[in-house]
């Protein structure tokens, strides 16, 4: 084996006390850097209202909505918050975010101040297999509320240890922060209609694997979401929009319905099964999402149904 020059061979003359002193110095500097640089990153991240998901969330928290629409990309691309605002006279904010489920909805809700004027939360039912893992996208809010902290860590010691670092909490924000410093124009957020018409008919059916094991966990989180909203003195409504493919396994679907039923939460079904108009591919951009025309139709229908099942009056 050829001899390799390594630091082990290099003259690193150290004694144990010196090593411990240096390790101690390292730890001291590390904690100081973590607090200082992490604090700066935190300030910059909170100022950002223009770039990425972080910017959207900051903007939402400043807006103090009276009606809050939550859910995944379905909510984001289907429900026109300006139309709902015109119909209800309330400040309506669509905070739908791609690939998010009940955990994200609870986390976002927990960030609103207790004194907020929230009257109604509309949650478009959504579920993702990797929801717990994916929640780290809002790590930077760690420490803002006890509920949020427990959602982020899942009371797991490893996550708690990692999130103890302020820098780690702001990991992943370098791009958005730099972008918001360079170009501070508001990013498009809220309702985002999709253009285009679905062309491939018939639509292939996606078959999702059963996920019965997720149901007890999901039921607990759904009950938590309902309790969170009601604790704020607001109403909660679950909606289910149309899709030409199976959105989640049957076990998940029945969990949504049974929790809503047992908790007395109004359920607004706007799927193709209940509303035959939503079987028309011309209203879809892709099998899972409505296009602009479909969104206009469903937004109007949602406003009408909300007025029936959960009327709100805003001053």
């Amino acid at each position: 084996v050829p001899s390799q020059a390594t630091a082990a061979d290099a003259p690193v003359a150290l004694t144990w006390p010196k090593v411990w002193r240096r390790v101690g110095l390292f730890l001291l500097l590390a904690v100081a850097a973590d607090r200082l640089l992490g604090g700066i990153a935190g300030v910059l991240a909170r100022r950002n209202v223009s770039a990425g998901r972080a910017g959207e969330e900051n903007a939402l928290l400043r807006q103090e909505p009276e009606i809050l629409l939550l859910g995944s990309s379905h909510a984001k691309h289907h429900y026109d918050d300006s139309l709902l605002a015109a119909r209800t006279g309330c400040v309506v904010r669509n905070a739908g975010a791609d690939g998010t489920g009940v955990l994200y909805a609870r986390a976002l809700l927990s960030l609103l101040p207790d004194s907020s004027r929230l009257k109604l939360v509309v949650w478009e039912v959504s579920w993702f297999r990797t929801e717990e893992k994916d929640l780290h996208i809002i790590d930077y809010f760690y420490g803002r509320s006890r509920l949020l902290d427990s959602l982020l860590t899942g009371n797991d010691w490893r996550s708690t240890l990692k999130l103890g670092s302020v820098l780690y909490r702001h990991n992943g924000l370098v791009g958005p922060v730099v972008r918001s410093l360079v170009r501070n124009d508001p990013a498009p957020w809220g309702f985002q209609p999709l253009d285009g018409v679905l062309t491939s008919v018939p639509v292939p059916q996606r078959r999702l694997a059963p996920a019965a094991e997720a149901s007890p966990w999901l039921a607990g989180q759904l009950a938590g979401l309902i309790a969170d909203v009601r604790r704020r003195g607001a109403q909660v409504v679950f909606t289910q929009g149309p899709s030409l493919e199976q959105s989640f396994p049957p076990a998940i679907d029945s969990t949504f319905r049974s929790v809503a039923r047992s908790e007395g939460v109004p359920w607004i079904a706007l799927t193709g099964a209940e509303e035959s108009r939503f079987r028309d591919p011309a209203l879809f951009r892709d099998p899972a999402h409505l296009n602009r025309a479909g969104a206009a139709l469903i937004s109007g229908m949602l406003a009408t149904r909300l007025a029936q099942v959960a009327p709100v009056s805003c001053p």
Partner: protein
Amino acid sequence: MLFNSIEFLVFFIVVAAVYPLLDYRRQNLWLLIASYFFYGSWNWRFLLLLFASALVDYTVGLQIARSDRERTRRAWLAVSIAFNLSVLAYFKYLNFFLASATALVQALGLPVQTNTLQIILPAGISFFLFQSMSYAIDLYRRQTRVIEYLPDYLLYTSFFPNMLAGPIERPSHLSGQLRAPRVVTPGGVYSGLALVLWGLFKKVCVADNLAGYVNAVYGNVPHHSGPTLVAATYLFAFQIYCDFSGYSDMAIGMARILGIDLITNFRTPYFSRSIQEFWHRWHISLSTWFRDYVYFPLGGNRGGAARTLVNIMIVFLVSGLWHGANWTFVVWGGLHGSYLILERVLGLVNADGARTRGPVSRALATLVTFNLVCLAWIFFRSNDVSDAWLVLQRIASVSGPVFWDPSLVPGLLSLVILFAVEALVEPESPDLIFVRRPPVVQGILAVSVLVCVLFLGSKASAQFIYFQF
């Protein structure tokens, strides 16, 4: 348990804290328990395979050492090689051979039923079997001493820092250290910590951050333009370097903390000025393994110029196949073999590497070498040979937009830091940038690296690429 996980940190702290309290025999037992626990945490079912393969070579080793008859020694060596290669062939290559044979028969127009077996590849199998095989070969060559105490041998094949992805140790280097008391020195612990930190930076800040872009592009080649594929190929070059050398740095650093010296596996290879020099600086433990156990037995350079070139090509084709059961790896090996042959035939290299003088020609040689290596990486990274050809065709067309992913920013920032550090220490070990500075500067440098790991490191911890080999 990945090296870059909190679970592993706790595991290693416990191992390292108990270790100095024991005498060297108990230290070996302690490390053996820790190593089997570590491997079992991946898949406990393969512990039996690990144990059985070690037991075979341990027994073979005893028999070779006890016999003076050449024929007997040779027969025992054959048992070891046959056993190890059979295990490797079954777990790693059986499906590949079946698929290739089926394709060949189909190409001849004969009817054939396609069947593949559901075989799970044990993590790190190529590494621990090669390390085990080198023990039997070295004993046969009388280049090392027999290990008589079974736990010592089991530890030699399963030492947790290097068992999954190397460096592939040699008995003459590692077993001697396992048979004698070891001294945990303050300098060793200190430089070991520096190396672990630097390896962690390479893995989570560079490799894992670049992985998303590379996987997205190479996972969907037909949808990407030539410029995007060029970008993804360059980024893959750094991803695989940082993934693999990051693992090696951490393995060497951890072993050093335990008072054990592992051989250096990488020496800033992308600064090489020739392919020959590249192979003296990239995955050194594997290239020297193939040199000693394949190239030399084939005759090395003693059979004349033509025979030498043939031997070089054989070694690189085998090396390609070692990396994985796919023709892409064989082509990758073949390309490197061809480069080396061309360098020799054209007289471009001497014993020290490239025949270059002056900074400009050196920089040019480095640039050409890097691009040749990247060209070969296209085959290494592609899912199959047809994908690789498509990549080459798209790159040749030199047109189309470049796919940009904002999540690349932390990876690119980290790449700049990596380049700056490696350019400073090249060709020495990167931990030297930490240990040969005044204490305060060392502290600031180390903290800066930690800040990068926390702030820029990827949260999606991916498995090390070389575990699959």
